[in-house]
Each structure stands twice: as structure tokens, then as C-alpha cells.
């Protein structure tokens, strides 16, 4: 797909004193893309966002906005708007005044401004509240106004700094769909920062996983989840079993490994060049139990059980190795296995991944 480049980041490093927040980070974000920066706290994702907004400048490297170098542009000259984590709505202004603020600074005339404010309030379903002040709103409503305010000036890129973290669970889920549809409706590039992997998987076109100031992987949600580039990504996104294995041979994308269960399997690999120790990653929901078991079969004993409603998570001991197994409770009378009970579990080798240690 030939799409324009919205943001280009070249070899950006940032250090605060001796602390290296970002280390030679490079990536390109396309126009009309929902791009997520995902990582644990302290991984440098917010720093990166603030550099695009102009509140921080890179120690090294360059950031381009629509092909234009923005190093020397102060924040108020960048066609980029931010939805702040705390929303940062102006408490002394009405909602309509908040939304109009950016438009006034851009020199829009009154008529155009009023039309745009009305349009934005409509877009976020807040039209009846135009004359209220931020203090009179709930968290979700403030969130909507922050979005409307940032979208009103038609920025080239919208930056969202963990905007859902202050909302309760139900609202958070509803806002995810809303953000996604807003992005599609407006066609504006969204850069979304979060530490919540579920949010990232749900909303993004592409995800950039950041860890320890470096890019760990960039890819679509399913690439990130199904084909993690390394242990860090496999560990951070979702849940997984790490099994220490011995690599026997590597052939291109595939590696043959010997597992502690005595099995020799061939699975896709990342980052390996030859024989040696490696880690096998096997997601709990990819291991079947009894009737759901498939592929390589293993005998084990249940040692723990967590009932989650739709799923039950079991811990199964297989030849001295503890495996987390997720079982879908597909029938209302589904069997339950008590700790101590022997069970058969199974997995397909194309679900397993071999990762460099």
C-alpha cells in the first residue's frame, strides 16, 4: 500500500543525565495509521511521544513530520495535537471554549470556529454540554472533550498519552471502540501510548513494542502476539510458558529443538543462528486439555486451578516442568479437573516458537 509517511523517527536517542531513556530508535508511521507505542513504564514511550509533540528534544537523531524536519519547531508550530493523560482541560473555560482554543490560535474566523466546535461536540456526543465547565463532567466525558479539543484543529497527527488509564474498566472498553472509529472517521494518524497490551492489540494497525529504551518489535497485533521477536515481547504481550530447550539444528526460519519432555519438535524460530540453548514459548491457550488436546500429547498432573468464567487456567506438571494451560469452558457442563488429577494435554508444534535466550 503506497501511503504517505506521517512521522519518521531516525536514530533517536535521549538521555537524562546518565539515564538512557531511548537508544537509537528508528521507525516510520504511515498516514491514516493507528500506531501504538507499547511498553512497560520507563521504557521511553512517553518520552518519544513528547519529542514528537515538541516538549522534549532528542539528544541525537531526527524526527520528521510529513517529510519535514521539526527539530527547530516549537510545540505551537507543529501540526500535532495531544490528548494528555490527565486530559489537561482548561478549568476556567467552558467545553466549547476549550475546543475553540486551538482554532482561535490558528486564526480561524468566528463563524468557522463555531461550526467546527459544534461539529466536534456532535462527534463525541457531547453537544448538550457545550456551556459546562470541565469540573462538572465525569472522567469519560472529560476524555471525550479532550479528544474533541485535540481533533478540532485537524492535526496531521494525534498523540494520545495513555488516555484510557484514568477510566474504569467498562468505560475503557467502550472508549476503545470509539477511539478506533474516530480514527477511521477522521483519517488522522493516531499515535497511541499505552502499557496495556490488550488495548494495543484491540485498537492498533501496528504496534511498536518498546523495552529498555529500544524497539523490541514492530508489527501488526497478530504478528506481535503470534510471532514475538524475542523473549521480552513474548513475555510482555499476553501470557506464555517459557521452556528451556536445546537447539539441535537451525534451518532458515525453522529450528529443531529437544524439549525437557523428551520430545524433539520443529518450530519457527527468531534470532537463532545455530545449535545451543534457547527458549521455547508456548501460549497457555495453545495447549489443549483432554478433549481439546491436539498434536503432541503429554501426560501430566494438575497442580493448580484458576476459574475465570469463560476460561479455566490450570497449572499442569509435566515431567518436572510446570505448564500453564488455558481451557475454554465451551459447554456449561464442562468438566473440571481437581488438583492431583492426571490429565492429557497436547499442543501443535506450529503453535510453538523458539526464541533466542
Amino acid at each position, binding site marked *: 500500500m503506497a501511503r504517505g509517511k506521517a512521522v519518521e523517527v531516525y536514530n533517536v536517542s535521549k538521555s537524562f543525565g546518565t539515564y538512557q531513556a531511548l537508544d537509537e530508535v528508528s521507525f516510520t508511521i504511515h498516514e491514516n495509521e493507528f500506531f501504538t507505542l507499547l511498553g512497560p513504564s520507563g521504557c521511553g514511550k512517553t518520552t518519544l511521544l513528547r519529542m514528537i*509533540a515538541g*516538549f522534549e528534544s532528542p539528544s541525537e537523531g531526527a524526527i520528521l513530520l510529513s517529510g519535514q524536519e521539526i527539530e527547530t519547531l516549537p*510545540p*505551537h508550530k507543529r501540526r500535532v*495535537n*495531544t490528548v494528555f493523560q*490527565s486530559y*489537561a482541560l482548561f478549568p476556567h473555560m467552558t467545553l466549547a471554549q476549550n475546543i475553540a482554543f486551538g482554532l482561535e490560535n490558528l486564526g480561524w474566523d468566528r463563524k468557522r470556529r463555531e461550526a467546527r466546535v459544534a461539529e466536534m461536540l456532535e462527534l463525541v456526543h457531547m453537544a448538550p454540554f457545550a456551556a459546562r465547565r470541565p469540573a462538572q463532567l465525569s472522567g469519560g466525558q472529560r476524555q471525550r472533550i479532550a479528544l474533541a479539543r*485535540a481533533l478540532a*484543529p485537524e492535526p496531521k497527527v494525534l498523540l494520545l498519552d495513555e488516555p484510557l488509564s484514568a477510566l474504569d474498566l467498562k468505560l475503557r472498553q467502550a472508549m476503545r471502540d470509539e477511539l478506533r472509529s474516530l480514527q477511521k472517521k477522521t483519517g488522522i494518524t493516531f499515535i497511541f501510548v499505552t502499557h496495556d497490551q490488550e488495548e494495543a492489540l484491540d485498537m492498533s494497525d501496528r504496534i511498536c513494542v518498546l523495552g529498555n529504551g529500544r524497539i523490541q518489535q514492530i508489527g501488526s497485533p497478530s504478528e506481535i502476539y503470534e510471532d514475538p521477536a524475542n523473549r521480552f515481547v513474548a513475555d510482555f504481550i499476553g501470557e506464555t510458558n517459557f521452556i528451556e530447550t536445546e537447539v539441535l539444528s537451525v534451518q532458515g526460519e525453522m529450528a529443531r529443538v529437544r524439549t525437557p519432555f523428551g520430545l524433539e519438535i520443529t518450530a519457527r524460530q527468531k534470532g537463532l543462528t545455530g545449535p545451543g540453548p534457547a527458549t521455547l514459548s508456548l501460549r497457555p491457550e495453545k495447549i489443549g486439555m483432554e478433549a481439546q488436546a491436539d498434536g503432541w500429547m503429554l501426560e501430566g498432573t494438575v497442580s493448580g486451578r484458576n476459574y475465570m468464567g469463560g476460561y479455566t487456567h490450570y497449572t499442569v506438571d509435566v515431567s518436572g516442568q510446570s505448564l500453564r494451560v488455558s481451557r475454554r469452558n465451551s459447554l456449561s457442563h464442562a468438566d473440571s479437573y481437581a488438583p492431583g488429577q492426571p490429565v492429557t494435554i497436547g499442543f501443535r508444534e506450529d503453535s510453538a516458537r523458539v526464541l533466542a535466550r
Partner: protein
Amino acid sequence: MNMKALKTFRFWGLAPTWLLMGLTLIIPIGIVAGVSLGDRGPYGGFDWALNFSSYREILFTMGWTDELEFDPKYLAIIGRTLAYGLATTAICMALSVPVAYVIANARENWKPLLVYLVTLPFWVSMIVRVYAWLIILGNEGLAEKAWKLLGGGDVDTFLFTPGAMLTGMVYSYIPLMVLPVYAAIEKLDPALLEASHDLYGNRWTTLRRVILPLTWPGLSAGAILVFVPAIGTVLEPMLLGGGKQMMMGTLIQTQFGGGRNWPFGAAVAMVLMALVVIVLILNARRAASAGKEAAA
């Protein structure tokens, strides 16, 4: 506790406050009000009476033919007092905002020290502080040397000029402005400033549309704290102004001192107090309507 006991408790609990207020505020003001209605005594002092001639004297003089003639000389003093008060307040405000901003953005462990430094002059007697300016601004003083060092031409003297008076007044009252402004700026959420810049607001727009409206409570509190004592000031016009610029404070002082017209001095004092009360009422009204707006 039943209602009656509560009422008794409340009465006796507040009694010391009322006693203090009565002895130090209400009774003295009553005495001054009484004096202002009295007759001027033949050798200073006064006689109790009930006439408003002292108040009339502020606006009119008795002509040759016992006719009242409008005389703006005291009105000019009132006007000058207000002008100096406003100028002092404005200069204090302009200087306080950057100072308070620097303190608010200083490293956390420096803040108490910086605040302490701002209040430091208050530990020295007012007369000493004003006297210090007499030396700084005087002939061959620090100010003159600095002026010449910077290549300034010959000056007669800095002393006994409106500039000297204003310098002294600003110096005396500026801590009263810095502290509330600092408290207001400290409370300002830095994310709001970023939001303003993010929404295409330059520094000026951010100052005008975000910082000033949100720090206004602090600024107006500081303005009251500076303006009220500034219009009653005596020392600066006397020492630094050389008595050439009569203000209400000095006028009152001369009436009780050399002028020996206590009723007239008391009347001017009552007018000064009325001015202060008007300012306070206006401020309270504005604060109340601002509060209502915020709650609406």
C-alpha cells in the same frame, strides 16, 4: 452537648476574640470617628462636638467673605495617594510574576530557602529598611555610582523624587505580592501550559489566556495586600520623597503633629479607611461572583 450549652460555649469561647477586637479595633476607630466630628481646640487637641466641618474642609475652604469655595488641594492629595498606590501595586505585580515563577519552578529543596529570602526584609524594622534606601539613593550613594558606571550623565540626585518614593514603596510591599502569587503559580498544573502550547498558543497567548486567569486569585489577593498598606504609607513619602509629595498618610501625620488640627486629621483618616473598605468590598463581590460562576 445540647443546644443551650453549645450556645453558651460559643459565646464564652469567642469572648476573648471580641474583647481583643473591641479594645484594639472597634473602640479606637470609634474614637477617631468621634474626633473627626469634634471642634479644633485653640491650642491643639479638640473639643467634643457633632459637626461635619472637618469633612467639608477636605473639599472646600472658607473664602474671604465667609463663602465656601471649592478647593481641590486635598482632593489632589487623595488622587496622588491612589495613583501611587496603584503604581506600586502594578510594579509589584509585574516584578512578582517572574520571581514567583522562578521559585515555583526551582528544585524542590531550594523552594523553602527562596521563599524565606523573599520574606527576609520583614525581619528588619521598616524604618531601617527605608533608611537604607536613603543611603543607597543619596548623594555619592550606590545608585549614583552604578548610574555613572553604566555611562549615565550627571544627575542632581535620585532622592526626593517620585521615583525614589516608588522604589521604597515597591521594596517595602513586594513580599506581600510574591507570596500569594507564588502559591497560585505553584498550584498551576504544568500540563495546562503544555496543552496551551500544543494547541498553537505561543508564550504570550499562554500567559494571557491560561496563566493569568488561573493565577488571578493569587494576583488579586496580592494586589489587595499591597494596595491597602501602600495608600496609608507615611515613611516613604517623608524620607524618600522628602515631604515634597504630600500623601494621605503624611497629611494625617502633620495634622496630628505640627498642624494641630486633630478633627481634620481624623476626618482624612476616616476617608482613607473608607477607601480601603470600598476596595475590600469590591474584591469580595468579585470573588463571590467568580465563585458562583465556577459552581454554576
